């Protein structure tokens, strides 16, 4: 499913950018820090979960007590970067962008269902908004059910059985969602550059995120 060679617009990395279209600030340092620490913690949670859960990995790794301890503390720490990041004005603004659904977001979702490539979006497209909200909710549920399993005297047994059930199944769903997130980023080098360096090409922004106010105003970020 690759596009015809040459049909893609050239990326900023292969073609020198015209001087009047400089890179656009997409994520501040604080936002990138929140993203990368959260992703590291999430990946450690998923990897250790696999070592606790899948027999072939469990047999390979063993060391059950160590793996459990790492899993518990990384899980507990998972919401911390975002909570600290709330001190950043840029991050709060992006959270409010992620929260609200504009008419073009519904259009984006319809376009996905019809496999159309006209997918209008603001700074975040509707898929990114849903992924962010779903993952935030899932992390909170995993945290709650994980605490019930960790501190066994916190609640009666039937709660713990239910918590284990939810934690196990939601873990599989989270793994699928994260894999989808990684797949999407693997397909878009410019989006990855945005999260790595904080800056993106204006042409890319105008194409992928036409309703992003910064892209629409050609509001160049200076450094």
């Amino acid at each position: 499913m690759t596009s015809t060679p040459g049909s893609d617009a050239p990326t900023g990395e292969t073609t020198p950018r015209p001087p009047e279209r400089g890179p656009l600030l997409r994520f501040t340092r604080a936002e990138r820090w929140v993203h990368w620490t959260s992703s590291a913690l999430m990946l450690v949670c998923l990897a250790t979960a696999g070592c606790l859960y899948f027999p072939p990995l469990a047999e390979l790794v063993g060391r059950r007590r160590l793996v459990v301890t790492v899993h518990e503390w990384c899980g507990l720490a998972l919401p911390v970067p975002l909570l600290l990041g709330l001190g950043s004005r840029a991050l709060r603004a992006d959270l409010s962008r992620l929260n609200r659904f504009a008419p073009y977001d519904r259009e984006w979702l319809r376009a996905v269902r019809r496999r159309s490539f006209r997918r209008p979006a603001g700074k975040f497209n509707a898929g990114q908004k849903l992924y962010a909200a779903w993952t935030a909710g899932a992390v909170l549920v995993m945290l709650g059910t994980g605490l019930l399993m960790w501190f066994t005297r916190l609640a009666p047994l039937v709660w713990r059985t239910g918590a284990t059930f939810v934690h196990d199944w939601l873990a599989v769903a989270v793994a699928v969602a994260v894999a989808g997130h990684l797949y999407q980023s693997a397909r878009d080098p410019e989006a990855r550059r945005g999260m790595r360096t904080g800056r993106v090409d204006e042409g890319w922004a105008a194409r992928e995120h036409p309703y992003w106010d910064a892209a629409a105003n050609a509001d160049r970020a200076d450094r």
Partner: protein
Amino acid sequence: MRAGGEGPPVGRRVVLGMLGLGAAGVAAGPYLQRAVENVASKDPTGLSGLLPGGGGFRYYSVTGSVPDRTAADYTLTVGGLVEKPVSYTLADLQAMRQRRIVRDVQCVTGWRVPGTPFEGVLLADLLEAAGVRPEATAVGFGCFDGSYTESLTLDQARRDDVLVALRMQDRPLAHEHGGPVRLYVAPMYFYKSAKWLDSITLTSTVQPGYWEHFGYDVDAWVGRSNGRDDAPTA
């Protein structure tokens, strides 16, 4: 500059919806879990073993790697407060009187495997053969993974549903299930049934085992310990 500041707060609704679903899942979990187990128990492909909580055993080891022992190099020692310390090869154990027990296996972490046959030598027979000295009141178990330990009181160890198991599910005990020889304590949570058993030591007091140093109950009766109320397995 409140970009996207208008429009319905779908993100918040999704987060709250997830919290609601999570709470509903915790409430309905025990029933859903049973439904999943019912389906999985009728699955001839065994693929459902990959599902969360889909039944079957889970592999827990407390060390990085466990050496393989075969009939050629396996020995089980019975020592401590006994009249005559004994050492058994796998063939010695196989030549002794065997007993087969079919009970549910219940793990303290929640999973349960129904009707699992274990077969082996009664621990009581091995204690009898070594001659327990009067000052002994407890039995300690050591494992060739190098770390795991367990213990029972002498009365618990002499029960007729406590085995030094050589076979499980009517097959020789595989390495990942603690083979060639493991302990099997039918009435207790499965952490008492130490895998890769290679030593039995009579002691004057109960020495808490590996997980018991991390808060698990020493007397691990299924349904009457560890704050759990599972149906008893024996």
